[in-house]
């Protein structure tokens, strides 16, 4: 299996003096020998089977060659993708196409999937407690809870108001309901999009949503209007590209207001108010609230950055607050220029799986590279992207963008529209099958 040949000789020569993460290029897709030869290496409990957690679960099984037992705790029965959900709002994609099952993780990878909520942890006994499925011991715990909303930051946005004024910033019933509000909106109606100050989940997401809804209005309700109330001082991702599309393709349809920070909403009158007292009335209001790490991260003492996010070690993705607990995805305090994206959460999942396999095998985990891409569909066919590659800096102890790497699309294109749809299909499959 590991026969030597001249190509390998050349390669090994090339690798002779290079970084430690290189080297085993010749080997199949597992970092450990065949399962029969391994003693069990331990058990990892993963909480949250979204983009980060489900990826970690799969790659822990794959790279340990089954030597690590994995229990995956997820409160939802299905994986519902936020990526591509903006297309559903515009009627450019079926809702069913963003909903996926967890069977692949069970059948292909032997992961024990438990549908329950984690409610507590005993960090000394290394035990996770769930609401109705009992307790689970772990050697290592991985937590990828995504975000929760700071509803209190917008006065009037209580539980009752959330039934009328939707956020649709977690895909699911809210996505379906917002689509219905848009379908019910008469031609000539006003749609308001509010955007919180960064950082929030998916920097280009709100601007993609505006583009998708503009496309729907242009093709179905041409007298309607979109007002974008952005808490930031400008479009914070792919700004020139989005602005170009809005100016060229959706002329007169979109009104953009920077530095418009919403502090109040009245669900009855559908009026929103800014911190300096400006007001706007909309027929449909989509309110994307400010965010912080998912609730469970707060409950178990992981949150140690601005009272909002989780600080981690960027080699192992282990929490700096609680030992043996690794935190992934949107819940982390992002490294410089690292977005809170599904693509990046998938990368975190792989990096954490790699580190845990190395640790449980008694070896020293090495920093790996992390790369991001965020595609955005700007109509029913064309897309744009932003991408970056992040390399660990051992002095600063954080990943930094490799100078000269990454960038944005030259222009929106149909070709990238095809790649965007391929990306969604391929990343779902990389996570779940």
């Amino acid at each position, binding site marked *: 299996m*590991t026969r030597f040949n001249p190509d390998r000789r050349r390669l090994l020569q090339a*690798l002779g003096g290079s970084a430690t993460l290189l*080297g*085993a290029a*010749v080997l199949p897709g597992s970092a450990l020998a065949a399962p029969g030869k391994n003693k069990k290496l331990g058990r990892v409990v993963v909480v949250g089977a979204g983009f980060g957690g489900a990826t970690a679960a799969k790659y822990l099984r794959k790279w340990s060659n089954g*030597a690590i037992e994995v229990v995956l705790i997820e409160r939802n029965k299905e994986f519902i993708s936020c990526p591509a959900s903006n297309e559903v709002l515009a009627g450019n994609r079926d809702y069913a196409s963003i909903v996926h099952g967890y069977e692949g993780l069970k059948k292909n990878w032997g992961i024990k999937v438990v549908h329950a909520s984690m409610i507590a942890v005993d960090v000394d006994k290394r035990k996770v407690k769930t609401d109705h499925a009992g307790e689970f011991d772990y050697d290592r715990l991985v937590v990828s809870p995504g975000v929760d909303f700071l509803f209190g930051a917008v006065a009037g946005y209580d539980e009752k108001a959330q039934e009328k004024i939707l956020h649709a910033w977690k895909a699911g019933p809210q996505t379906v309901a917002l689509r219905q509000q848009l379908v019910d909106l008469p031609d000539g109606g006003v749609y308001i999009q509010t955007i919180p100050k960064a950082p929030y989940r998916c920097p280009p997401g709100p601007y993609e949503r505006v583009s998708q809804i503009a496309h729907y209005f242009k093709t179905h309700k041409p007298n309607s209007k979109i007002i974008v109330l952005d808490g930031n001082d400008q479009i914070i991702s792919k700004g020139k590209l989005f602005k170009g599309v809005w100016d060229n393709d959706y002329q007169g349809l979109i009104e953009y207001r920077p530095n418009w920070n919403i502090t109040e909403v009245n669900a009855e009158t559908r009026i929103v108010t800014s911190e300096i007292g400006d007001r706007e009335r909309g027929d449909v209001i989509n309110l994307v609230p400010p965010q912080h790490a998912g609730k469970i991260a707060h409950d178990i003492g992981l949150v140690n950055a601005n009272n909002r996010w989780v600080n981690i070690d960027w080699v192992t993705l282990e929490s700096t607050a609680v030992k043996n607990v690794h935190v992934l995805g949107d819940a982390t305090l992002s490294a410089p220029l690292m977005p809170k994206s599904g693509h990046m959460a998938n990368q975190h999942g*792989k990096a954490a799986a790699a580190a845990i396999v190395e640790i449980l095998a008694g*070896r020293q985990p090495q920093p790996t590279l992390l790369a991001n891409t965020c595609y955005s569909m700007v109509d029913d066919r064309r897309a744009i992207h932003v991408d970056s590659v992040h390399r660990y800096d051992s002095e600063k102890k954080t990943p930094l963008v490799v100078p000269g790497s990454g960038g944005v699309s030259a222009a929106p294109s149909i070709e990238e529209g095809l790649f965007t749809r*391929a990306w969604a299909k*391929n990343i779902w499959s990389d996570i779940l099958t």
Partner: protein
Amino acid sequence: MKKLIPLIGLLASTGVLAAGPAPATPFPYFVANCFNCHGTEGRVNSAIPSIAGRDREYLEAALTAFKAGTKQATIMHQLAKGYTDEEIAVLADYFSRQK
């Protein structure tokens, strides 16, 4: 070159993937950076091309050309600039060995 000989011996006899405290070389986990777009192990059937089992020289030449900006691309020219030439050799070799 001389230094490599014991390493090669080890590869041939025990396989570097065995669990244990001191493997000869760690697994190049960064190859998984490519899986989200090109499919797990580079295997996929989509508008984004499959890279599993392609000729090693072809893959290395393609990645090097993306990095140099001499091969037309929507995104690979930007991503390839994040990897060293040694890492590109590892990537090309790894994916050429996937079926």
